[in-house]
C-alpha cells in the first residue's frame, strides 16, 4: 500500500510539469507583443526603454526553452513574478485572497454534501413516491439554475425583501451565508442524483435483504448497511465537485461582490495583468491536482477492501 501511495504521489509530477508548461505558454499565445501591452499598463509607461526593460524582466529575450526553465525554477521557489499593474508580488496577492475563497469553498462543500446526500438518501428510501420526485425536482433546479442567477434571487429575497442579511457590510459570517448557499446548492444537485442511484443499487443487494430478515430496524439497515456502501462513488464525485466549486467561486465572488481568488483573476484578465492571471491559474490548477490526489488516497482509508499493491 505504501508503494501505491508513493507512486500515486509521484504521478502528479508530470501533470504539474505539463500544467506549468501550458500556463507558461499563455504569455506566448497572447496576440501582439506582451512586453508592449504590459509596459503600457505599468507605472513606468509604454516608452521603448520601458518595453525593453519589461521584455528583459519577463525573460522574453532569452531562448524559449530557457524561458520555461527559468519560469519553472522560480515557480518552485514560490516566485510567481510581480504584477505590472499593482506592482506587488503575485504570490502575495494570491495568499492574501486565499482565506476568503477557502472559507467560501469549505462552507459550500459542507452544504453540497449535507443537502446532496440528504436529498439523495430521501429520494432512494422513498423511491417512486412524491418525496423522490420532489427531491429530483430540487436537484434538477440545482443543475439548471446558474449561480449568477440563484445568487441574485437570494440577495433579492433575503437581503432586499426580508432584510435578514445586510447587502453590504455585516460580519464575515453574514457575508458568507448567501454565497455558500448559492454555490453549495449548485453542487448538491449532482451529489443528490448520484447518492440516489448508488443507494438504490445497494438497497437491492442480498446483504440488505439479509439484514432485514435478521429483523434489523429500517433505519439501521439503511444507514449502517446501505449508506456506508453507497458512499464510495459519492466520495469520488464530491472530490471532483471541488474543482467545480473552485470555478463556481469565481462567479459567486462576482455576484456577491466578495473578495477572493476568483475576483483577483477576473480583475487580472480585465486589466490584462498577464503575470497575475498566470500565477492564479497555476496556483488553482496545482491546488486542484493536490485535492484530487487527496481524494484518491482517502479511498484507501474509507474502503478497507481496496489494497493496492
Amino acid at each position: 500500500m505504501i508503494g501505491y501511495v508513493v507512486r500515486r504521489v509521484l504521478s502528479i509530477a508530470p501533470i504539474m510539469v505539463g500544467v506549468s508548461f501550458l500556463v507558461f505558454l499563455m504569455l506566448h499565445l497572447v496576440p501582439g507583443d506582451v512586453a508592449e501591452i504590459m509596459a503600457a499598463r505599468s507605472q513606468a509607461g509604454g516608452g521603448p526603454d520601458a518595453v525593453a526593460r519589461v521584455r528583459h524582466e519577463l525573460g522574453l529575450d532569452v531562448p524559449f526553452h530557457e524561458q520555461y526553465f527559468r519560469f519553472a525554477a522560480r515557480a518552485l521557489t514560490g516566485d510567481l513574478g510581480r504584477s505590472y499593474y499593482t506592482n506587488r508580488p503575485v504570490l502575495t496577492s494570491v495568499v492574501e485572497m486565499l482565506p476568503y475563497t477557502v472559507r467560501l469553498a469549505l462552507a459550500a462543500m459542507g452544504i453540497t454534501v449535507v443537502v446532496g446526500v440528504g436529498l439523495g438518501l430521501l429520494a432512494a428510501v422513498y423511491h417512486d413516491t412524491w418525496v423522490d420526485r420532489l427531491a429530483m425536482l430540487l436537484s434538477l433546479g440545482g443543475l439548471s439554475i446558474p449561480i449568477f442567477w440563484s445568487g441574485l434571487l437570494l440577495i433579492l429575497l433575503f437581503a432586499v425583501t426580508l432584510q435578514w442579511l445586510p447587502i453590504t457590510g455585516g460580519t464575515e459570517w453574514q457575508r458568507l451565508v448567501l454565497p455558500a448557499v448559492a454555490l453549495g446548492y449548485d453542487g448538491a444537485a449532482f451529489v443528490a442524483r448520484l447518492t440516489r442511484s448508488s443507494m438504490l443499487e445497494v438497497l437491492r443487494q442480498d446483504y440488505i435483504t439479509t439484514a432485514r430478515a435478521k429483523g434489523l430496524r429500517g433505519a439501521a439497515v439503511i444507514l449502517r448497511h446501505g449508506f456506508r456502501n453507497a458512499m464510495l462513488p459519492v466520495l469520488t464525485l464530491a472530490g471532483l465537485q471541488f474543482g467545480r466549486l473552485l470555478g463556481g467561486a469565481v462567479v459567486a465572488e462576482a455576484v456577491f461582490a466578495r473578495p477572493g481568488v476568483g475576483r483577483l483573476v477576473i480583475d487580472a484578465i480585465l486589466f490584462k495583468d498577464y503575470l497575475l492571471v498566470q500565477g492564479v491559474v497555476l496556483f488553482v490548477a496545482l491546488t486542484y491536482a493536490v485535492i484530487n490526489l487527496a481524494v484518491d488516497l482517502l479511498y484507501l482509508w474509507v474502503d478497507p477492501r481496496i489494497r493496492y499493491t
Partner: protein
Amino acid sequence: MRRVAGPERVTGRGPGGEALRRFLRTPSAVLALLLLGVLGAAAVAAPLVSPYDPLDQNMADFLVPPGRGHWFGTDQFGRDILSRVVWGGRLTLQVGAIAVGISGVAGVVLGLTAGFYGRWPDFVIMRLIDLLLAFPSILLALGVVAILGGSLPNVMIAVGVAGVPQFTRLVRATVLAVRALPFVEAARAIGCRDRAILWRHILPNVVAPALVLATTSAAGAIITGAALSFLGLGVRPPAPEWGAMLSTGREYLRHAPWMSIFPGLAIMVAVIAINVVGDRFRDLLDPRLRME
C-alpha cells in the same frame, strides 16, 4: 448494437421510430422539447416577434415595472426587456450551440485518431487531454479568454475548448469498443483500407453517444457562456445577451428586480428543457438503462 426483437419489430418500426415513439410517450420530455422549440423559434424570428428594438433607448420610460406595453418592464435606458430577452436568445443559445459544435468536432477527430490508431497518437492525444482535465473547466475557459480577449467568438472558442476532453474520452472509449467487434475484423479481412473502416464502420457508431453528450453538454455550455458574459469577459453591453443583462440587472436589483428576473428565467427554462430532453435522450439510447 441492434435492439433485441420486441413488439416494435412486429409493428415494423425501425429502432429510430421506436425511440421517437418512446420519447413522445414522456410528457415532461415533450413539454421540454416544445419549450426549446419556442425559445429557438423566438430567437430565430426575433425581428418579427420582439415588440421593440432591443437597443432602442427611451429615457422617458426607464425602469418601468412589468405591465401593459412592456410585459417584462424596461431597463435603465428605457429599453424593452422582453425584446432584449428575445434577441438575447440568439446570442446565448448560439454560444451554447457553437461551443458544443467546437468541442464535438474536435473531440470526435481527436478521439477517433487516438482510439483507432493507438500507439503514439493515442499517447500524445490522451496526455494532452489529461493536461486539460487538470484545470477546472471554467478556469480553462477563463484562460482562453485571458489569452484571446473577451468577445462573442472568443467566448464560443473558450467554452468549446473547455468541453473537448469529455468528447475525446467518450469517442475514444467508443472506438476502442467498436474496433474489437467482428464486423470491423471482417471489413479488414476483405481488404478495406483504414480510412474506409474509420469512416464507414466506426464513425457511424460514434455518432449516437456523441450526440447524447452534445445535448447534455449544451446546457453547461450555455451556463458557462452566459457566466463569462456576466463576468464582463464575453459579450459586451449594449448587446442583449442573457448573462450580460443579468450583470447589469445586478446593479439595479433593489429598484428594478425585473431586470434580473427575466433574463435569468430565460436561461433557466432553456437549461432545464435541454437537461430534460438530454436525460430522456440518453435513457433511450443507453442500452444498459434500456434493459431495466
